[in-house]
């Protein structure tokens, strides 16, 4: 004010005018819902064909947000991703999104043979017709970056095609493989994947596509869990009834990633039985569904999930 020798009220009104212009336009929540219902597939969801899961997630894997798939090795994460890629590539009258899929395969676990097998087993009428298998598989673009810098490059490249609406699903399998030496407690500071996390979440939102990311798991003992200062005073009581269990603190640690994920599905195997748990979801209480792996992918043994007390979902056991 002293520099410009301008009235305070003028400065205020200039500020107000600029703010009004810079501020994005508002919408009512009703308008948001109606718009999505009208323009997007099933109001913005990709059905997984697992009835119980789709019911819990209000239609399927939602568009515009990141869905995380967590679990120890060999529980079925890659199988689920392969099936989802197939479902997204299918034409609309078979319940698919009729679009391209980008599959970022960091651990080299993508097998097209298995995917075609899933397709032939679930949709025999499509896959046995000429050329369909080739067309479906042709819509899935597989990238295999071998280092963090290659991953960064791939993300930059696909940004363009994502924003041009040609791609309908992005799968990253897995984020954890890119971050070496991640098992120590990380000191506060810039997370190495922080740029990537922000990019992924903003891509999901602006291109209104579902993004599915898989993640690994590591065991964590009870002592490592963080507490607030007012809880520390009651620590002695907590230490006394401590029991060792595996918590699923994932291998892309830090609250930045945990805040960026909207839906978390936890896969685990307990004494020969496999379970898929909906651990974090804004529209569903924590539910567990037993499942098996069949030639056509994952299949739920029952569509009624059993509701669980939440930190039970945090206890993971493998075999």
């Amino acid at each position, binding site marked *: 004010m002293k520099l410009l020798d301008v009235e305070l009220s003028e400065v205020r009104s200039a500020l107000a005018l600029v703010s009004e212009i810079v501020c994005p336009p508002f919408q009512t*929540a009703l308008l948001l819902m109606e718009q999505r219902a009208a323009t997007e597939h099933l109001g913005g969801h990709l059905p997984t064909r697992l009835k119980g899961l789709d019911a819990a997630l209000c239609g399927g894997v939602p568009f515009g947000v990141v869905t995380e798939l967590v679990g120890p090795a060999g529980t079925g994460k890659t199988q689920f991703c392969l099936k989802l890629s197939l479902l997204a590539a299918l034409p609309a009258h078979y319940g698919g999104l009729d679009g391209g899929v980008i599959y970022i395969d960091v651990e080299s676990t993508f097998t097209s043979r298995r995917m075609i097998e899933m397709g032939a087993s679930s949709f025999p009428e499509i896959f046995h017709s000429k050329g369909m298998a080739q067309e479906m598989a042709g819509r899935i673009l597989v990238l295999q970056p071998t280092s963090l810098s290659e991953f960064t490059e791939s993300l930059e490249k696909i940004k363009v095609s994502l924003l041009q609406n040609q791609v309908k699903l992005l799968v990253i399998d897995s984020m954890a493989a890119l971050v070496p030496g991640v098992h120590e407690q990380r000191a506060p500071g810039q997370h190495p994947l922080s740029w990537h996390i922000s990019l992924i979440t903003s891509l999901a939102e602006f291109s209104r596509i579902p993004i599915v990311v898989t993640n690994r798991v590591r065991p964590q003992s009870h002592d490592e869990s963080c507490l607030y200062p007012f809880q520390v005073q009651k620590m002695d009581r907590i230490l006394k009834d401590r029991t060792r269990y595996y918590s699923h603190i994932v291998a892309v640690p830090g609250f930045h990633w945990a805040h960026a994920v909207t839906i978390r599905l936890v896969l685990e195997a307990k004494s020969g039985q496999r379970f898929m748990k909906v651990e974090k979801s804004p529209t569903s209480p924590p539910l567990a569904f037993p499942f098996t792996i069949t030639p056509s992918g994952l299949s739920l043994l029952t569509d009624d999930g059993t509701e669980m007390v939440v930190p039970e979902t945090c206890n993971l056991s493998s075999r």
Partner: protein
Amino acid sequence: MEVSKLPISATQRGKLISAGYTSLSSICSASSSDISRGTQTAWDMLQEEQESLARITTSCADLDNILGGGIGCREVTEIGGVPGIGKTQLGIQLAVNVQIPVEFGGLGGKAIYIDTEGSFMVERALQIAEACVEDMLEYNRFLRNDCQVKTQPKDILENIFYFRICSYTEQSAVINYLDKFVSEHKDVKVVIIDSIAFHFRHGFVDLALRTRVLSGIALKLMNLAKKFSLAVVLLNQVTTKYTEGSFQLCLALGDSWSHCCTNRLILYWNSNERHAYIDKSPYLRSASASYSVTSRGIRNSTSRSKRIKMMI
């Protein structure tokens, strides 16, 4: 010393002289009530506070109890917690509950929801709105009131104004714009920002600038709350801090931010249950209460051994 020699801008000098202050001593002798406007005595403030006893219920009786009835108007409440504890759920619940008509004990107002992370899910808002209407119908039936429940879930969704903010510039802009927006939509009674921390945590190199911008935002929000008698609710993330030999959880944005809000509520896990703890408040006792997130929204927790714990 003469006013004409003071190092201030020409317009201000001109104003001081035309108001009759020609030297420093004349300025010094002016009483505080002459110079400052907008001061009130404590008694006047108490009268004002008594008038605005309106509080927004959280739909959980235990939470409402420790909050003195609910989230208060004319103040800024900060709610923080780990991911998945239910901050966005609570935000959506408040956006729906502010619309409960006055006959049912609510404020009958509208809500502004400023989303910085993209975590607002319309389907969930619909679920909570439907449960709210069902509860109102049941309340009506139970007490055999004459008042009709006219609101439909869709009307509730229509009264939530949703802003999607993608950078800290837009965040500052929307907070500046709110003054004009709320003057045009006078029945807005709650402003929810989810979350305040998101754009300020990563990529902000100049921390001193960050502190200045944040305190500016806090002041504007406080002014907004007081001017229009509405409640401002800020949802915050957590981070870890190394104190006393171990990592402890604390709310994001640092120590200077922790002074900016009137009330601070921390949501945390305690042996399988969600709890809320009043960390800072000028008039509420430090206490914690348990709550749960159900398909109908935030409700009382159903555990058998719950009671409100007073912390000393």
